């Protein structure tokens, strides 16, 4: 049998060899496959520096002839694979070769460390959301921080601003723009009012909302960091006008090849809106505000990028705050007049560059902010101011195979002043931090990210050292698991430090396990966490529990508090099943208790709701070029303080729960063009069902009557529009 086969094949070889030597040509043939031996059709196989080559067929086979003799360099290229180079000896009769190519690292075949982080980015492909998704979500009112409250891990607290994450308070979340901490990311806090964020969502190209276990690059946040990255260039040019029920604004954008400039100015007055939408609050002076911003970006070289952003705003308001604890005969509901005048300035400038063909990266920044509130409460002065200057530099070295190492340092000077009933307090903190972090890929399926951060705070004269570790393993083509552990420190709330600088850093340890699968425009993500709190500040006031969130902590304080938070959250997004419809569902569960502030016993804090659900739907109707979004949120009841229960019983203290909060909101935007100008019109309705939501209760001093604290309005609506006054302001293709 063998003999029969060998004979003809021997003969053919000889025959081909003869015919080839006659024409002085050599045939090069073979097969190209991936590492698993699967054929790669369409690969380019050729001898370097010659026209001689061929493309592989559907079986991965190739065959071409060459007049070259002796040796040549064989080069094989294929899209998405590493090039193959080998010097070969050309046999006079026939050269046969089989080659296995290695896939290039890409976002699909390489694991990404994701535990704790929820990203929205245009630049990365494997993200849960795009920045545009945030802007067009109903119920977020185009406020980037409000949109974060719809993401997994966040708990909605209707009557306070800020982001509450996994059992943490709003003070435990820091907002960071291009690496710089923002001292006052929200408009000034008012009793029982949720203030808006100060920043426009279109400023940012990427958002990463970390609900724990985050990088050693960031500190001073026990629960969460919200990382915002500003855009690199203008998306439009020319003059823009905007007008809505709350304000009127003007913007101007101008770009050249290497630089761009944007300037905005606005004036707002809520009087017309409040006349149309019934207010639950008693305003004595409707909020009035004016502001401006300037952005300048310059590309001084091919690799460098300089950005400057500055803004200033001025706002005034007056309201009657209901403080039942202060009720007297003749003022049974305890109405107290509050007047406030806020001025806020924020500037940040960053410079980024790279060297050595992008192997060395530098990111530096400097930021300065100043904020002052002239506040009178009744007749007493409660004015405050804050001033923060910070500088930061990070050097990253990219190593082979996706690995990298970075070093960085930051320094801050913070000056705070606070008048309390006419008594002035002030403090100054010099804060410094240094960090090292490495991203280390063992293979494309397994990556580690160890890091360590050291911090010093001059006001308490203490140092801390916080290790962090994340790892991720790719479990399939579309799925992966990640694990993160880290220690996080935060300087205690400055209100405590005015009277006691012997306090130490508060601390939290996070452990997070994450699984995600992104496939065919459907995403599923599940994350479980355990958080341990230590060294929380406790107050020993010697007086009964005071439920007023704006009270000043007069009592003795120490770091003997502690607590825990545990739970999980789920996220599901589907852009596929119903054509044109995009929806996502989020469920977050948290179980948490702590001993802190005035607590005598361990309890669940009043800002915690155990269950948070949100359902967001969007649909674009192409024929009428209208985008419609509907959002439903459910927030389970929160603990509230009932003075009729003893404060030293774990069973009784904060054991009452408010009713659950439900909200359905709707928004629509419509795009049209008139006389060459682009016009966007939008309308939204919040609390469509007009639910009488209750966020918390407050009791009168005699403990007999309780008052509900609810939203600023029940069902409310908002309309507005903007015009881009430029022929060039063109929205290309399809959607907004």
């Amino acid at each position: 049998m063998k003999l029969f086969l060998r004979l003809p094949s021997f003969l053919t070889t000889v025959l081909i060899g003869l015919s080839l030597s006659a024409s002085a040509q050599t045939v090069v043939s073979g097969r190209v496959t991936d590492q698993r031996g699967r054929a790669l059709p369409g690969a380019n196989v050729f001898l370097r520096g010659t026209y001689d080559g061929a493309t592989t067929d559907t079986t991965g086979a190739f065959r071409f002839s060459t007049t070259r003799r002796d040796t040549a360099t064989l080069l094989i290229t294929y899209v998405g694979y590493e090039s193959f180079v080998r010097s070969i000896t050309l046999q006079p009769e026939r050269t046969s070769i089989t080659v296995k190519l290695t896939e290039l690292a890409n976002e699909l075949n390489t694991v990404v460390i994701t535990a704790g982080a929820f990203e929205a980015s245009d630049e990365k492909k494997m993200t849960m959301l795009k920045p545009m998704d945030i802007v067009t979500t109903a119920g977020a009112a185009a406020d980037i921080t409000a949109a974060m409250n719809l993401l997994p891990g966040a708990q909605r607290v209707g009557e306070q601003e800020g982001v509450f994450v996994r059992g943490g308070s709003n003070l435990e979340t820091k907002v960071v723009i291009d690496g710089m901490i923002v001292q006052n990311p929200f408009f000034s806090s008012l009793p029982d009012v949720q203030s808006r964020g100060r920043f426009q969502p279109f400023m940012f190209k990427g958002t990463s909302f970390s609900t724990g276990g985050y990088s050693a690059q960031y500190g001073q946040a026990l629960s969460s960091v919200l990382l915002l990255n500003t855009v690199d260039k203008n998306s439009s040019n020319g003059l823009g006008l905007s007008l809505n029920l709350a304000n009127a604004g003007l913007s101007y954008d101008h770009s050249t090849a290497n630089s761009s400039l944007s300037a905005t100015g606005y004036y707002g007055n809520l009087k017309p809106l409040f006349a149309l939408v019934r207010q639950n609050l008693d305003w004595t002076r409707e909020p009035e505000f004016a502001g401006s911003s300037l952005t300048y970006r310059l590309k001084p070289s091919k690799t460098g990028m300089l950005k400057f952003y500055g803004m200033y705003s001025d706002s005034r308001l007056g309201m009657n705050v209901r403080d039942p604890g202060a009720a007297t005969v003749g003022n049974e509901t305890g109405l107290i007049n509050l007047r406030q005048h806020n001025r806020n300035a924020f500037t940040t400038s960053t410079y980024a560059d790279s060297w050595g063909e992008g192997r060395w990266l530098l990111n530096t920044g400097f930021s300065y902010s100043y904020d002052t509130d002239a506040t009178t409460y009744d007749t007493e002065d409660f004015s405050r101011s804050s001033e923060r200057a910070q500088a930061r530099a990070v050097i990253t070295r990219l190593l082979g195979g996706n690995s990298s190492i970075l070093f960085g340092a930051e320094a801050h000077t913070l000056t705070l002043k606070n008048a309390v009933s006419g008594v002035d307090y002030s403090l100054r903190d010099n804060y410094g931090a240094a960090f090292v972090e490495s991203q280390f890929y063992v293979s494309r399926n397994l990556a580690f990210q160890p890091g360590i951060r050291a911090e010093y705070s001059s006001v308490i004269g203490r140092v801390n050292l916080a290790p962090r570790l994340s790892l991720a393993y790719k479990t399939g083509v579309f799925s992966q698991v990640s694990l993160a552990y880290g220690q996080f420190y935060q300087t205690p709330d400055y209100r405590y430090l005015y009277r006691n600088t012997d306090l130490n850093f508060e601390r939290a340890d996070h452990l997070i396990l994450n699984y995600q699968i992104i496939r065919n425009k459907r995403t599923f993500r599940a994350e479980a966490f355990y958080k341990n709190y230590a060294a929380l500040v406790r107050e020993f006031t010697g007086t009964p529990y005071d439920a007023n969130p704006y009270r000043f902590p007069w009592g003795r304080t120490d770091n003997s508090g502690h607590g825990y938070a545990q739970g999980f959250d789920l996220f599901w997004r589907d852009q596929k099943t119903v054509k044109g419809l995009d929806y996502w569902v989020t469920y977050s569960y948290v179980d948490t208790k702590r001993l802190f502030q005035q607590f005598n016993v361990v309890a669940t804090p009043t800002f915690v709701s155990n269950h948070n659900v949100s359902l967001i739907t969007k649909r674009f109707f192409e024929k009428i070029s209208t985008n419609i979004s509907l959002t439903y949120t459910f927030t389970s009841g929160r603990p509230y303080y009932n003075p009729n229960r003893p404060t030293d019983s774990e069973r009784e203290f904060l054991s009452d729960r408010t009713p659950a909060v439900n909200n359905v909101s709707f928004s629509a935007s419509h795009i049209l063009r008139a006389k060459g100008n682009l016009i966007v019109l939008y309308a939204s309705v919040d609390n469509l069902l007009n639910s009488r939501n209750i966020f918390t209760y407050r009791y009168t001093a005699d403990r007999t009557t309780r008052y509900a604290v609810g939203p600023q309005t029940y069902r409310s609506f908002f309309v507005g529009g903007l015009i881009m006054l430029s022929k060039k302001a063109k929205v290309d293709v399809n959607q907004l």
Partner: protein
Amino acid sequence: MKTFITSALILFIINVVPAQAQSTGSDQYKQAMTEALSRMKTQSEKTPVPDMLAMANQFERIAGVETKEWLPRYYAGLIYVYLGFMGKDEAEKDKFLDQADAHLKAALALAPDNDELAVLKAYIAQSRMVVDPANRWQQYGPLFQSGVEKAKSLNPNNPRPYVLEGTSLMYTPEQFGGGPGAACPVLKQAAEKFATFKPASDLHPMWGKTQIEPMLAKCPK
């Protein structure tokens, strides 16, 4: 007469001899390009991906030998733009367009201010945008526009920037500034320019005329 012939001969020798070393290469180049271009003419939207890759590979091999010629890079890039429209999913489309970008970059190093390469740059931006219009128009819209404008300013007679601009407008809804009303004048401009446009050689780009014909047919005369 004699002097004329002698001087002509001298000129011929002077001109040709230094080129002689290249001339076989140059002939070979022309032949290879002509062959690759005639193969490319058979291309349609039904051409299977491996066949498209084979066409691009052919130009890539020519580019590997003719390191001073931008045209092979240009055509390889152009085929990857077509592949960018054909890819089976977003990731594959982007992978092809990464290749198009790499070829454009190599071509621009040889011919930095070339109108056809500005057209290719705009074409790549358009193909990138079409991958995910809702999320990408902000980034790639201005890039597309700047490529089109640059091509127009480099060579006002080139019809291809008008082809791309007109096509893009035709498929952009009216409320975004597109539609036949906006597209037709631009497409007509392209048609006028095709009437007089002469490519620098048989190897230079000539595409676009047949692409716009079905759209022009819908325009008011």
